[in-house]
């Protein structure tokens, strides 16, 4: 069972208490943007075999959205953090680099 700590209420929540929300830190492109940007924002996903930043909602708890850094090839969880940020916190990135030397991804590399 996947267990994530909700960064708001501090609860170690079982997966059954949470609702997955897909890739985090997507850059939003709206009206007036180019077709390619709009397409990528709506449909294209990183879907890495490795470290994934993603959104979760503490659906059967405090109800708030948060972010998690998790490995899709080992199911290791590196950490969770509040959603009010456009990139992962330094501590989480440091944990990932310690576990996976040489890891890089997009602009968070």
């Amino acid at each position, binding site marked *: 069972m996947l267990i994530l700590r909700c960064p708001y209420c501090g609860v170690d929540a079982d997966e*059954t208490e949470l609702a997955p929300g897909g890739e985090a830190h997507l850059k939003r492109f709206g009206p007036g943007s180019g077709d390619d940007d709009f397409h*990528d924002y*709506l*449909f294209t996903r990183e879907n*890495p*075999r490795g470290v994934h930043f993603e959104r979760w909602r503490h659906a059967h708890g405090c109800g708030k959205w948060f972010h998690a850094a998790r490995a*899709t*090839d*080992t*199911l290791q969880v590196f950490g969770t953090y509040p959603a009010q940020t456009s990139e992962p916190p330094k501590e989480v990135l440091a944990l990932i680099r310690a576990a996976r030397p040489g890891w890089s991804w997009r602009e968070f590399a």
Partner: protein
Amino acid sequence: MKRYSAFAVAREALRYHTGWGRAWAAPTPNRRYDVVIVGAGGHGLATAYYLGKNFGITNVAILEKGWLGGGNTGRNTTIIRSNYLQDPSAAIYEKARALYENMSQDLNYNVMFSPRGVIMLAQTEHEVRGYRRTAHANALQGVATEFISPERVKEIVPIISIDGPRYPVLGGLWQARGGTARHDAVAWGYARACSDMGMHVIQQCEVTGVRSEGGKVTGVDTSKGPIDCDKLGVVVAGHSGVLAEMAGFRLPIESVALQALVSEPIKPCMDVVVMANTVHGYMSQSDKGEMVIGGGADGYNNYTQRGSFHHIEETVRALVETFPMISRLKMLRQWGGIVDMTGDRSPILSKTPLEGCFINCGWGTGGFKAIPGSGWGMAELMAKGHSPLTEAFSLDRFKEGRFIDESVAAGVAH
């Protein structure tokens, strides 16, 4: 290739089965092929087979990082049906279903296709309306389905409880020529036929990079060394994003785990496939007597072939309610596969931004049934540059807003 036949069985019986040859060769890779296919699942093998059979292209290698059919092709619940809503879906799935009817003869390999009939239960008013609509669409598409009453469902499936308290059975979408086939045999049969045409099926050969020059594909790097090719077909299901990254583009796909399980074998009790999409449970009985069960996919990205236990619980709970007699059954095995989900729940068969590189993916939770039709269309696409079967499934449909929306029609599609 020695043909399999009743006569061959008798002949071998008389000489203590010493004359059976290998079903397919285990070659070392050449330095170059006209076409390289990545992934020896059903779709990759079928693509290679029809490249040879329909277009005479046989200088082909199929590269597989694990073993033949060890991906989703050997992990699914083998449901075959073609009762989709949209016209492009009906065309490719019905082509596939029709090819399944003669596959054993065509490949000279018994794939145990069993057109036993598939019922999709309608358990809410919304589903009743949805399936009636699908039945009408199917009539126009020339796909034989009908919407049947709860009483008729009970007649076809005596072990079902149609008046459950929460989700009574209100009817069903019945496709009499849907059914199941032996999944491993489909991979093995195609592999044997490909090998017989001189193609190289190479197992334990992982593609680790895609080579290109001036925007055109020139070959791949593999765990068995570099291999050049003119055309590359990427057919790796859950790993499509990984291969796309090697080839320098991204996909509208998320990889998630989908699980299945089988019970201990029991006497024959249900001779059709039953799908209950509202409650996420699917069941059929294998020839060995095991109840073969599938459910819903996980909601988060995963490459580990391990799914979440609560989905199994959810599925089993729903099926016990629907089929009370299975409540004492013991489950024997459970496993997972990594499925490649698109937003409109339809596959992608397409050229890619890299010239000479084609992709066949996005079959998600429901591509076993499509294997022959997909291979047929993909081969045409790779040989000629276009195919009426695959046209609508191109990668640019998302940008152009031409979705082939099967998510509403099927809820979950197996």
